[in-house]
């Protein structure tokens, strides 16, 4: 989507992050002058500033990685974001603006929970049964994710239905349908939520405290999925076709690519990963499914954008947003700084990433990477039709 070499992309992403921190610091200073607090961190003239940006950032960082518990939370968030980010990235690589990961996440999670609801009694209540339950659940999550992902793909490929619209619609529909399914079929007791997943079917917490609901046994395969997606894009005809379709659909067609098939396959692949994210959420994080799920699918878009849609880049991008996300809670509890700050920072980062021109300008002003910046400009402008 954004034109630049790999190295430059990395610099742009890093620069965006730094600039976002600076912009966030300004926001903290200004808003700190309006906030009411008992003991301002410092006063200047008649103004009293409630927030100290340095302190805010260090509390955030410490809150995200400062203890095994919080590091677990961060990694848990990161795991979900990697899956969602990769799910989004593969479709973005194909030039498809897929916003539907959230819907696949919802249904993937629900499918996992439904499997537990219907089969928990059939399997032994021990590690073996638990493993089976987990495997079945994740398979169901992937399958439902694939189906729900393929749907907008089919609609786009064979009915020319704009994927931005259909995926937004399918997200709304997923929310409503999932709610109704739980309310009507999977409910146990009065609350609209599914059966609790038994402990023996939950991925074991090793290294990190169980309270953080994180298992490294999930993170490792997740990393493998990101690496695998990268490998697939660069080392398989399907990956090549996905990229050609994204760059130039007419060239793809010319080279014998069945673009409809590629669209559907890409969406399906994305759906599988999005569905797995839902499964991980249910099995590892929440332990059951209920209608108000976090916006992991949307966060996946930001992760993918920051990573320039590169599945390997998704890993650090997800870690960064994971830190922001889980550090923000500490911020709120310890300093009383609204944790919505994390959302603002996320938006600003994406804004800077969206404008490489601006970042290059900043780079030149600062005298940084002069040569690489200018050569990149030459490269992109010379033949800009």
């Amino acid at each position, binding site marked *: 989507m954004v034109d630049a070499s790999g190295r430059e992309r990395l610099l742009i992403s890093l620069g965006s992050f730094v600039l976002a921190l600076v912009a966030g610091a300004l926001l903290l200073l200004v808003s700190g002058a309006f*906030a*009411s*607090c*008992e*003991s301002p961190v410092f006063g200047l003239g008649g103004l009293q500033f409630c927030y100290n940006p340095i302190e805010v950032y260090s509390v955030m960082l410490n809150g995200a990685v400062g203890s095994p*518990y919080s590091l677990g*939370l961060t990694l848990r968030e990161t795991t979900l974001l990697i899956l969602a980010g990769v799910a989004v990235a593969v479709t973005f690589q194909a030039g498809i603006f897929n916003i539907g990961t959230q819907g696949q996440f919802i249904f993937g999670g629900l499918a996992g929970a439904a499997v537990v609801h219907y089969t928990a009694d059939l399997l032994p209540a021990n590690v073996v049964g638990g493993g089976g339950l987990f495997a079945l659940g994740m398979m169901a999550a992937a399958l439902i994710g694939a189906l729900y992902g393929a749907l907008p793909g089919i609609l786009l490929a064979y009915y020319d239905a704009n994927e931005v619209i259909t995926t937004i619609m399918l997200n709304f529909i997923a929310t409503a349908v999932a709610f109704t399914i739980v309310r009507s079929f999977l409910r146990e007791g*009065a*609350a*609209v*939520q599914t059966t*609790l997943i038994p402990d023996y079917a939950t991925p074991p917490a090793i290294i990190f*405290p*169980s*309270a*953080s*609901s994180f298992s490294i046994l999930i993170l490792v395969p997740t990393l493998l999925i990101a690496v695998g997606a990268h490998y697939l894009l660069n080392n398989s005809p399907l990956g090549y076709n996905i990229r050609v379709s994204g760059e130039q659909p007419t060239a793809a067609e010319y080279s014998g690519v069945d673009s409809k098939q590629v669209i559907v396959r890409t969406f399906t692949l994305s759906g599988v990963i999005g569905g797995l994210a839902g499964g991980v*959420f249910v099995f590892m*994080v*929440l*332990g*059951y499914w*209920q*209608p*108000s*799920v*976090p916006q992991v699918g949307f966060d996946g878009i930001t992760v993918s954008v920051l990573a320039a849609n590169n599945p390997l880049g998704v890993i650090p991008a997800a870690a960064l947003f994971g830190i922001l996300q889980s550090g923000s*809670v500490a911020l*709120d*509890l*310890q*300093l*009383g700084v609204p944790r919505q700050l994390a959302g603002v920072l996320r938006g600003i980062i994406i804004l800077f990433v969206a404008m490489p021109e601006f970042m290059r300008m900043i780079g030149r002003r600062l005298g940084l990477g002069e040569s690489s910046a200018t050569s990149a400009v030459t490269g992109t402008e010379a033949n800009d039709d």
Partner: protein
Amino acid sequence: LGGSNGSDDTDSSGGNGSDGATNVAIVYPVAGLGDQGFSDNAQEGLMQAEEELGISHSAGEPDSNSEYADFHNQFASSQDPDYDLIIGLTFDQVTPIETVSADFADQNWTLIDAAVEGRDNVSNISFTEHQGSYLAGTLAAHIATEGFESETVSASGEGVVGFVGGARNPVIERFEAGYEAGVEDFDESIEFRSAYAGEFNAPDQGQSIAESMYSEGADVVYHAAGGTGIGMFEAAQQAGRPAIGVDTDQSQTASDYSDVIVASMTKRMDSAVFTTIENVVNGDYDGSSDVQLGLADGAHELVYGQEIGSAVSDSAQEAVTTTREQIIDGEISIPETVDE
């Protein structure tokens, strides 16, 4: 509104942990503060405890239901401060507290407005909303048959009443069931309309629902919808008809709308919060207690609006008073669920 942020005090409380000051954490429902009713009222109880009992407190305001467990975990595992009590509110926090409390046997919880069963470190406080709502139904039925007239609103007695719910859950259905029974026991022929917005923080939806009810002739509408209910008051203002508030005396807490609030069915979240904290401070906390507060405890009351409450007819007031006594005496049986 006081911009006081519960967490401001946390810093100072760190040192107090050892010298006996009580630290309390509260996890608000997703709909959040600012509902001029439920959550705000709970916060008031907390403030009262701070003032009168000198406690320190922190608050968690989750963004989605899936964050409840994290906040409970966070507070439970916190060493600095070490919380003496964590308060959870609403039905949505049952499972999160159930799960987390199993991991922290030494941590005390109180869940208000719902119940976690079988844990001796979680005490529950719930209410008999159906009883209080029955009174609201009695009043509504009177208005729907006799009509209502004040300087700011008027209802001609069309024989239609409405109910706006937030999300559908057993607690809110208790409100609806009691209210509907109150109306029907008075007069079978009164048309009863009810709709749920699905959320507790969607005032625009609440307004839309109430608007349709008033335009269908509803003489009065009652809500159990938290912040969503504010929309009902707005619709009442636009329609010039009376409305019944909930949780607090909303003619005071939502004073912008005191000109339409004929009465409110209070539900004393504040005293529930205060009492449970007081128990902890006094060392009387009982983790296995399961209290249901009702009319007899003064936990519910039908209070007439500051501005227009006086226009309620004497007969209606009398009916409410006698009904209240009958309920307390157990002479009226009130359903807790609506038949779908």
